[in-house]
């Protein structure tokens, strides 16, 4: 299918788009935590991907399948576009880990009145983009560690370490939030 799209087959491209557009959006949202921004970057990612589609070669990747290699390539384009946007001079929008303070900021009065989903969302937004990315892929998308390593271009050891740090931070933040509720 990919080869057909590379040869200019629009229907093949449509099928690829349909398959990858929703997970790409979720991935970008997990990294930036902003629906509008994730949509904007997703749009630019696809344009960039289309422009460079002919240069994509799954053989250059260590991924186990063409699908995983393509997802890794697409996600990398999206991640780089997000980074470029944050670095742009005069851009007031900053990554979440920079706009939000450390875990202490979680002890914020509005959290007390939110439902548990909101608590979880708020806690997740305290994680770094890399940590949120792993949480999304491991626990929402339910991918294996090996798969996450391939898609994100990390080693399995790095994914396990990142997963550990993410869950430890999440556990601490959620415990604090639940604790505030109990008061």
């Amino acid at each position, binding site marked *: 299918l990919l080869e057909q799209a590379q040869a200019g087959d629009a229907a093949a491209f449509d099928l690829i788009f*349909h398959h990858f557009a929703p997970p790409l959006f979720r991935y970008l949202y997990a990294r930036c935590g902003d*629906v509008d921004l994730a949509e904007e970057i997703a749009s630019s990612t696809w344009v960039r991907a289309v422009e460079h589609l*002919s240069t994509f070669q799954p053989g250059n990747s260590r991924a186990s399948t063409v699908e995983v290699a393509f997802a890794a390539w697409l996600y990398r384009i999206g991640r780089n576009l997000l980074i470029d946007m944050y670095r742009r001079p005069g851009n007031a929008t900053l990554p979440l880990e920079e706009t939000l303070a450390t875990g202490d900021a979680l002890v914020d009065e509005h959290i007390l009145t939110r439902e548990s989903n909101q608590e979880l969302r708020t806690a997740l937004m305290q994680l770094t983009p890399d940590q949120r990315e792993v949480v999304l892929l491991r626990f929402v998308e339910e991918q294996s560690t090996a798969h996450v390593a391939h898609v994100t271009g990390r080693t399995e050891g790095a994914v396990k370490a990142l997963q550990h740090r993410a869950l430890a931070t999440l556990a601490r933040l959620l415990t604090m939030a639940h604790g505030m509720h109990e008061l």
Partner: protein
Amino acid sequence: MEHTADIDRVLDDCLERMAAGDKPEACLAAHPHHAEELALLLGAAHEARHWDVPTLSAAAYASIHARARAAFATSAAGRRQPRRRWPGWTWRHATLRFAIAMVVLILIAGASLQAAQPSLPGDQLYSIKRAGERVEVLLARQPEQRALLYLDFAQRRLDEAMTLADNGRPLAASTMNSISDNYTLAWETIATLESVDPVTATLLTQRYHDKVHAQRQQVEEVLAHAGDPAAATALGQVRDIVATAEAPPPMCTARFSIFSTQRGTVTTKGPATQVQGNRVAGTFDQGFLAGYTLEGIQDMTGNRRTMTALVQGTLTATGPDGTLELQYSGAADQGLLLNREAEGTFKAVNGTGRFAGWQWQGTMRAYLDTINPPHFTVTATGPCPSGP
């Protein structure tokens, strides 16, 4: 530092085991030194699964798709072929000898396949050509890829039939059957997708109709210029096959959920696990068996190392109009398992009441909804049953 690396590994091990159906308590008991920390981390992982990540809205999907297609249309015209690079050389003698042997084998196989491409039914190399196609199907990971392949194979069979007729050679029944078989497989594969991915199914349906329509026109054109009466007769038969495929039969789909009710006998040998006599149950929620319940028994063989699984069994659907017994078998390889999918075929073998004597067979596609406990949604699709 060592402790951190250790807990990274233990945590991941626990998460994988829980994903496979183990209880968290078992993991905590297995790692008493880390139990307190693990309990907190596994609790956080449990919470994280409830993250309600926003979905891409239909409006945003359409807008992004339109922009991507516009870029695609611009770039497609002047698209270059993918650049080929020389692989980097590493001078390891044993590896090099092995690599050279593999390259020679691949070149021989590739050359044979290349040489077999123009072959026609009855030629010596034709079996190589068809074997290459079977490999293409095995390598096609997604059903949409396979549907497109089957359409492509139908085109190849048509081209072969037209060349044979042009050369005054007879068309065997197997050649005719192969054309219609590929259309059926393409249509069944598309129908299987309808309940799980309607957008892709719609796109493929359109493509199927466009392609088959174009193929019929192609055969009509060749037929109009056929001078030899025998060739005209053969091409007329081919035209009828394509015309039939142009209006494909209505497909009957039955979607059901299925889960184990009683674990069978488990045998583990190295990375391979065999489960025999697993009792299963479930309900049909879509299609002509909606509202029916099912019970059955199945065997499964899985291999952790190769990431492959085979399953076969029999299930009986029971409802107000009677019972329908289906035999099925399926398989999943690494690519499918990563997507939590498996696929196979089924055949009605027995029926009572309304289903007495029904002949219904086709393809099945299974999706693993939840890992713990394992719960599958399966879509069975085939041409609508015919009976006595």
